[in-house]
């Protein structure tokens, strides 16, 4: 009886369609593995390309803005240049003050108005990058331990 069972088992194990199916499954598994890796790569690359496109566009906008600011600052400085202001002032009837025209009045130091210096309000600086959720920082063992013990997440 046992011998017949063994023969049947052996025969079943070595059925051609089973051997063929095994080979096909291995091949499919290998392809799925390769495809999974490649899918990860394609997915990442596609997203990275989109983000890079955004970054490039914004960086160019920043650069253009920086350049425009510099050009405008320069034009403003040209308008307020010393020579220009002097010409305008002289045209309006003003003239530079000479030292003989200045009058200094000695004032005791205790009567001098004290300059009040307002300090800026101290504000906590925003973190340079958002903190990662704890799930991304704890070890797998610790997470498993918590999961099995059903500890509430902290």
């Amino acid at each position, binding site marked *: 009886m046992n011998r017949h069972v063994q023969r049947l088992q052996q025969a079943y194990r070595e059925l051609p369609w089973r051997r063929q199916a095994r080979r096909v499954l291995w091949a499919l598994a290998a*392809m799925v593995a390769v495809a999974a890796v490649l899918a990860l790569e394609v997915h990442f690359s596609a997203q990275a390309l989109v983000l890079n496109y955004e970054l490039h566009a914004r960086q160019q906008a920043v650069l253009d803005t920086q350049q425009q600011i510099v050009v405008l600052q320069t*034009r403003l400085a*040209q308008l307020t240049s010393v020579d220009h202001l002097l010409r305008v002032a002289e045209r309006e009837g003003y003239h530079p003050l000479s030292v003989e025209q200045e009058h200094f009045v*000695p004032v005791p130091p205790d009567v001098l108005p004290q300059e009040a210096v307002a300090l800026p309000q101290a504000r906590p600086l925003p973190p340079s990058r958002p903190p990662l959720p704890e799930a991304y920082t704890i070890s797998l063992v610790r997470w498993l331990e918590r999961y099995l013990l059903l500890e509430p997440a902290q």
Partner: protein
Amino acid sequence: MTRHVSSPLPLVNEDAGVAPLAAGWRYAVAVGVVLALGVLVVVRMVMLQIGPERAALVSMAGGDYAETVPLPRGLIYDRDGHLLAGDREAYEVDLRLGKTPGEAFPQIAHDLAVTLGLDEEALLRALVSNKARGVAAVLVTNRATPRQREVLLAQEENWYYTTPEGKKVTLSDVLDFHRRLVRFYPEGGIAANVLGFVAVGSGQGYGGVEQYYDALLKGGVAWVSYPYAPWSEGDAQGRRGPRKPAALYLTIDRVLQQQAEAEAARAVEQTKADSATIVVADPYTGALLAVAQYPRPNLNNYDAIQAHLKAWKALDFAVERVYEPGSVFKIVTMASAVDAQAVRPTTVFHDVGTFSVPGHTVWNWNRGGWGDQTMVGCLQHSLNTCLAWVAVDKLGKERFYAYLRAFGFGRPTGVDLGGERSGRYSYPGASMWSYSDFASQAFGQAIAVTPMQMVAAASAIANGGYLVTPHVLQYEVVDGRAYPYRSSGTRQVLSAEAARTMRQMLAASLKGESSAALVEGYSVAGKTGTAEIAVQGQGYVTNMTNASFVGWFPAEKPAYVIYVWLEKPKTSRWASIVAAPVFARMVKRVAALEHVPPDKVREQVAISQEPQP
């Protein structure tokens, strides 16, 4: 019996007695299709990573793995935050010769020359010769303004040429415009010698601050890297290149600078001098408030810069030109002797009008003798014989040259301006040194210095004996952080007592001679200098001099050192006549602009602040 099957797959196993052949091929086809689809997916994914689609996507995203980001050159401000050097929009204009028929050249050269302010004939010659050589395109200008570009583009109606095919070629068809930022100086010629300039093509700074801080102002091109694959280089934040351009805040005060430049121009006009240089500095820190000169170019006119450099071989006279300072150098000799305790203010020198050293006889400026003179009298009458005696007989060559080295003569001061020269002098041990050099150097001949070296030496006497490094940088700002100027080092060259004594001697000598440098209400100290100029083949000639004055105010608590140098004045050869009044006028201008109270007011304030018994 065994039957052999030619199929590569063992689809049939007759031993098992199952799987007939008809069912096997259908199965094989099904499996083949599944496998083919799988392979297709994998191949497609691989192609997406390395194929032309990948290149197209990367190109769409703006470039390859890394990109360089061009950054505007750093700005330069004066001490109050007024912009001295910025940028303006400009266009490089290229003419495509290949598309331009030769018949149109005269009209094109005319229109371009009129609009862009160029030499029409030179432009026409360049077009013809480049066309003959088969050059594809020629650079017309690289500084066209936006307005000039608009004018050129508006000439669309001017038809220049009709091709045999009947196509009309206009000016805008053959011109290429490339936008760029070029350096622009909103103050024009103000502080031109301090700022320097930037070459349009190379972007390299030349002269002044632009040259000295070129690397800081350029900042380097930022290099940014982004990841395109999980394992590619770079990180999510990108990577930066060397550093961003720095904004520089100078110690120069633009109004004081403009006033000093106006005074320099006035001095040249009144004295018919070849040039004038005026430096105003804080003696305690070495901060330069004004470094003025006349003539100087307008930095927005490249041709004017070239012409200036061709004529003068220097952009900034205060650091790039050396000359024999003459009697202003006597303050260095006397300060050295006082510090070494070789003489005191009351030490008497009997002047007979000459002083002899081996191979040379020193004469006074008036070829006369002045009898018994104290050291104050020697400075007051600017006696060459007395200072030669002090150096040769009282100080000795070892100590004299040790003091020259300590004061920094013969090497650059370290001022942060491009092109600084070191000056030179002969010293014991050098091949051409003689006692004649030694005696002459004591009163400022046979030694070449820059005005900046004299400013540094005078500052040391004014500030209590410390040699400070002159500088124009107040602080640099990079990424919103300010980094103050850090001096390369300060060292004591005179004792505080010797410096104080010198200040008193110089104030007394000016008062004693009723100098034109005196200013009502303000105590000043200083020294004139009239140096004859050596001409090749003729030696020292008497009709050409360098007239200078170095001094400070207030005399006892110096706040400002002022240096004046007039080159070859024609109305008078004497510094006391041409340079001293310029110093006095500068004192008045500085006092007015900086709101320095007169001595009487300062004394009243000092008395009121004294503790009451």
